[in-house]
């Protein structure tokens, strides 16, 4: 497992306490899990994603990630409608491990209330949280 100072946390993303990230620079938001989360889970072998068009509130479970011997739920950092799901993950779930912020993104949503993202953590606050974990 990585040491905390090896964890990659891009500056331009927002993070949730449940270890999801959100990109907030466009109207539609992309969601994935943090480098810290993928490292904790270990080799991801299967990703179950929602259907396009599904709606979830903030904090709802929208996906599950499976490693060989564990299952983890992923929760909506911001509520909204699912516009896209990452089609690559069906055949290559390992992308979540290899590139959690790039090719390993999970879903793209149209947020119901973009301001919900304001309550999320920035890089430093998130880092402080995982150090305290």
């Amino acid at each position, binding site marked *: 497992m990585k040491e905390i100072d090896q964890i990659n946390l891009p500056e331009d993303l927002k993070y949730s306490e449940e270890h999801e990230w959100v990109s907030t620079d466009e109207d539609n938001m992309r969601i994935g899990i943090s480098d810290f989360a993928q490292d904790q889970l270990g080799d991801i072998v*299967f990703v*179950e994603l929602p259907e396009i068009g599904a709606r979830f509130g903030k904090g709802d479970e929208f996906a599950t990630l*499976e*490693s*060989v*011997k*564990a*299952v983890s739920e992923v929760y909506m950092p911001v509520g909204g409608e699912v516009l896209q799901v990452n089609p690559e993950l069906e055949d290559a779930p390992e992308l979540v491990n290899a590139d959690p912020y790039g090719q390993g993104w999970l879903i793209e949503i149209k947020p119901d209330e973009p301001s919900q993202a304001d309550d999320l953590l920035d890089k430093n606050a998130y880092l402080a949280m995982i150090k305290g974990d």
Partner: protein
Amino acid sequence: MRYLPHTQGDLQEMLQAVRAQSLEDLFSSVPDACRREQDLRLPGPLSEWELDTHLKQLAETTGPGQGRASFLGAGSYDHYIPATIQALASRSEFYTAYTPYQPEISQGTLQAVFEYQSLCSRLLGLEVSNASMYDGATALTEALFMALRIAKKKKTVAVSKAIHPHYRQVIRTYFEPMGFTVLELDYTAEGQTDTATLQANEDLAAVALQSPNFFGCIEDLSSWAERLHANKALLITAFSEPLAYGLFKSPGSLGADIACGEGQSLGISQSFGGPGLGLFTTRKDYMRNMPGRLVGQTRDRDGKTGYVLTLATREQHIRREKATSNICSNQGLCATIAGMYLASLGGTGLRDLAVLNRDKAEYLKQQLREAGCQIPFSATTFNEFVVRFPAAKQDIPERLLARGIIPGLHLGPYYPELEDHYLLNATETKSKDDLDALVKEVAA
């Protein structure tokens, strides 16, 4: 006692090592209120010889006896079991092992089960098979729950009345607390499930049929599949006699989404109804919704092919109350036996054996018809069929029993409308003489 190896000396040394005075001291954490008030009141210990004598007495008072013919089928079938099966299944490396949690020293069990999965998948015409369930009844129950998981919001399933009555009783037990609706589909005058009894139903997740069904009749699976798929419902096909698929088109090739049932016919002793073997196969799309264990192929650190338990995240030890089932074992040894049996027969042998089974039953059916019996159902059958003995001869079953012939299963207790009907089974183990003897008694 030969199973308890500790000598008095061993006991003393070991008690000393754990700083206890006596064996009783080891149980100081068991409060008095939880203890027995008396010593065990049990017979024995019996010597090996005494036990042998006692069990032989019990065995002698079970079964129809030497030289008597039984035409009982109804979910448990008398097939010849090759000597190789008993020899190989008695290898204690197979039967004294447990679940292959440590794959490096369990490759025998793992490869045997992987082969079993492959054989089931080929036999039933579906892409994936699990490592087995308890029996046909519980496999079918699990299939219905699986269909409801796949359908997500739907809450209704329909089950044919021509499915084994015991299987339907098990379904009832499991479904009662769960709040789902189970519809029952009637059967036609031809002995098949009646399509007319199924109304259009948006809430329907799946229909379960048995083929050959309890009356031995082959169901028209492809037209059911077409109809159900048009309504986004699944077709579950059960069976109690898998040898039929040595001859008939496989359920998968006819559109079944889940094919499951009893595998006792595949080299497993009848053993008063258990252990049996629950076969369970489905489409690859539904793999992650399957209950039960799965063995998968992989590589070791040297790159060599090997086998492991896989997709365990579906199971109870990881997903706990959200698991696809509470099942935590499989019928490992029975699955291994089924693999040995199918490997012994091969595709050629299975086909020949299945044809012979049907030919025996067809011969018997024809002879009984000529002897004045009614064969009420006209649908195609495999090695089992329903007979109504001539009305004027109500005493036939009793007469047969008195002659040491068990005339199949009386259907009255299961289907009141079939009060004077019997379900007869004839496999390869019945000689023409056996069949003729039955017919002769009926005609007398």
